[in-house]
């Protein structure tokens, strides 16, 4: 998910990107600093948020499954995409297309 590369396209549409990691703060901060991510990367070590979104441990690896959720201006879920295989990676283009349909 090449979010960093396309982040400006999200900004130009007035959409914020919130990434959520279940890694520790140290690991998450390290990734952010190393890659130079511009969008906020939240950490949720307890993993309760991915559980509440129904995408935790879908593949038995004890991790949050790669997924994207589009929340509209009213705070409602308008679109979502959940990773279902190596050939079905979520792309920024998919998310941007969903935003353009809001």
């Amino acid at each position, binding site marked *: *998910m090449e*979010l*960093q590369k396309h982040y400006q396209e*999200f900004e130009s549409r*007035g*959409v*914020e*990107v*919130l*990434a*959520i*990691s*279940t*890694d520790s*703060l140290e690991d*998450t*901060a390290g*990734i*952010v*600093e190393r*890659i130079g*991510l511009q969008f*906020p*990367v*939240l*950490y*949720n070590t307890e993993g309760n*948020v*991915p559980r*509440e*979104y129904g*995408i935790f441990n879908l593949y038995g690896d004890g*991790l*949050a*499954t*790669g*997924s*994207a*959720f*589009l*929340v*509209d*201006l*009213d*705070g*409602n*879920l*308008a679109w979502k995409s959940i990773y279902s295989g190596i050939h079905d990676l979520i792309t920024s283009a998919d*998310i941007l297309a969903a*935003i353009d349909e*809001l």
Partner: protein
Amino acid sequence: MTTRSRALRVESEGSPSESVYVRAGIVAVIALAVVLAACGDTAAPAAPVAEAAPTATEAPVPPTATDTPAPPPAPTPQPTATQAPQPAATPTPPPAPARAAAVDFSLPSAQGPQYTLSSFAGQQPVVVVFYRAFW
């Protein structure tokens, strides 16, 4: 002689009278024929007209009576019953899948600030991404 003459006379009298009857009969037959012919001509045209009238009158009546009552009652209740549930079913699905409230969260970020999803409501849409391999 007398008898014969009588007979002859009778014959002679009968002859003229017979011929008169015959002529009258012929006239009567002709007259009857003419009358019948006239009646026949009159009846012939009259029959078709009379038949045409009832046929035309009876023809429209049965179909109209059969078509009119049968279709209207059947289709009218069906569309009404079908349209009633459809409108109710159509508006129900759209709101359900499209607009379920997103689960709120408030988490610290690696960059420092705390972010609360609900604080973006009314401000801007948000893409919430769960990913870890590479950003």
